[in-house]
């Protein structure tokens, strides 16, 4: 008697992801929603680890589970007026959400089921996880422009780079963009400078639009 641990953990994690995703939709308390979202995203990270994509899994943990949820909880706590915020959903919103969700599900299902390899090669999914574990090296090479999975393709024509051009330039552009956004946010959110002691009325400070502050 053998247990397919890979499938077992896949089903457990998939069930957790789906179940907590449902709980996000169905619960009314907004912080509980955040908690359920954490659990759902964490289960998805577990699926990534199970599939051998440890880099993507760790990214999921750091960016989605860590960053987004901390920000979400921050936002909820800083904007809530009552102690435990509940959200009431009207029937019209349920209908709308149902339509949008069903449409998205249909698209995703169609995309997932149209991938031929899953149906044809059943053993692909059951490949040993350990062999596909170290993916970060290949991803790093891909960033530099060396696609290890396409080394055999004919690349005599430089025009058809076929994903071999690397992503360093887009990466740098996005990084600089984010830095600019951060600096701008810090500039907008900064405390106004006070001239003189706190007890005395502050000298008029010119605001961003040029009008003096009251």
């Amino acid at each position, binding site marked *: 008697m053998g247990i397919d641990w890979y499938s077992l953990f896949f089903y457990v994690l998939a069930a957790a992801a789906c179940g907590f995703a449902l709980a996000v939709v169905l619960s009314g308390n907004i*912080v*509980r929603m955040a908690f359920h979202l954490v659990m759902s995203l964490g289960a998805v990270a577990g699926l990534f680890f199970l599939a051998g994509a440890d880099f993507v899994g760790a990214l999921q*943990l750091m960016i989605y589970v860590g960053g987004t949820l901390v920000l979400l909880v921050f936002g909820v706590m800083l904007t809530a007026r009552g102690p435990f915020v509940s959200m009431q959903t009207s029937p019209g919103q349920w209908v709308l959400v149902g339509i949008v969700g069903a449409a998205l599900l249909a698209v995703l299902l169609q995309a997932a089921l149209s991938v031929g390899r899953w149906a044809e090669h059943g053993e692909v999914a059951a490949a040993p996880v350990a062999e596909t574990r170290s993916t*970060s090296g290949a991803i790093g090479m891909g960033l530099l422009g060396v696609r290890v999975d396409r080394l055999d393709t004919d690349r005599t024509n430089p025009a058809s780079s076929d994903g071999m051009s690397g992503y360093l330039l887009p990466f740098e552009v996005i990084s600089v963009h984010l830095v600019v956004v951060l600096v701008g946010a810090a500039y907008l959110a900064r405390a106004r400078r006070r001239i003189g002691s706190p007890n005395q009325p502050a000298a008029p400070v010119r605001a961003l639009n040029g009008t003096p502050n009251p």
Partner: protein
Amino acid sequence: MAEYLAIWLPSWLAYTLAALVHVTLVLVVVLIAAAAFTWAERKVAGRLQDRLGPTRVGGRFGWLQALADGLKLVSKEDIVPAAADPFLFRIAPYLSFCASFTVFLAIPFANGWVGQNLDIAVFFVLAVAGLEVLGVILGGYASGSKWSLFGAMREAAQVVSYEIPLALCAAVPVMVAGSMNLVAIGNQQDGWFWNWLVFHDPFTFITLFVYITCAVASVNRAPFDLAEAESELVAGFLTEYSGFRWSVFFMAEYASMFAVSILASILFLGGWNGPVPITHWLGMVADPAAGYVPHPLWAYVGNLLGMCNILTKGTLGVIFMMWLRWTLPRLRIDQVMTVCLKYCIPLAAAMFLGAMLYTFSFPEGLLWHRSPGTAASFSSPGVHAWDGGGDTMKNEPLQGAFARARTQSTGSLGVRGKPLEGAPAGLHRHRDPGVNAWARERLLSADSVDRSRCDPLDRRRATPVAARGGC
């Protein structure tokens, strides 16, 4: 282990048992560490305040004090305040503990003794360690108390801010080592203590101290324990907790302290490689140059010594944090943020830049111990169970990847059509001229790679291009 058990047992039972044994081992490390640290905290605090600390429980030194504390906490009533959100209030401590415990999944305790030998272990550890704050935020919010909410908000702000300099500091040894695999980083610091990454160059030396500051702040220890500031917030996010759940929060805190200490000892302080290479002298480490492979049992003893080594370093790190806690006064919240944003982040960024320029300019090192022969005598090609778990390119296509990219000359290093020889000379420099020439030769021809020349310690000297193209 599972394969070994499967000889006698049905395979499903063997796998279950093996998994349980491994999980239990890590859990025992965490729990015993937490118990020992509560006792040590009391003793250290007592000594620093010129008193004795616990003396009676369990005979001398009060060494059973942790057990007595645990019994007291378990026997306390488990109170959920009327104003609380009961579900989140109950589950929050376990969230914190899960995050702290999961960190140990990827932390090696000796060469190859690791739950999961991840390629991206450093990244994983940092990602998971940052999740501990979620339990704190949820607990503080769900308590329905102002003190708890204030404490949780403070902790959230602090931990989220300090993650940035912490990650920057961890990136410096990762860059010097050329790998995010903690086993590989530890193995590169083999031999004498001057092979430790903290002594690699002046920048990594300073980085260690920035790392310590950020680590203390990110695990919420004094002088950065704003979240539990007793004089202002009663007990911060812990105000409404009692009994077992309170102790779970504390176990999570001690586990995090231990985790960041062990991470520091692997990244900077040699990991399981002692200040003196005793295991080499005793022949517990393989030496393929001499064709020497130790008896498996003897190698196991060597690993055991290495584990004692790293646990000692981690414990010393935790005791250092206790020393700080009972010596320094608590900072104000604005001072905490100032330390992070105005000092730690610029310092860490400058050290990152400096270490990068240093390794680029002096790939062979400036100091005497970097000369060939000293370190190399302890590490010869292909040593140390370099089992491919690192960033060695196991995939066959990768081995000639850069070489092919170069020969096809469509540019892989950013500049299209520019051959690799155009790269700066330092890019190919290497400590060992033989390896250097070999790496260059491998880069220029897409032949199969002679694996025996792949040396983990030499990889530190190699630039990423040479390393990835070669190994």
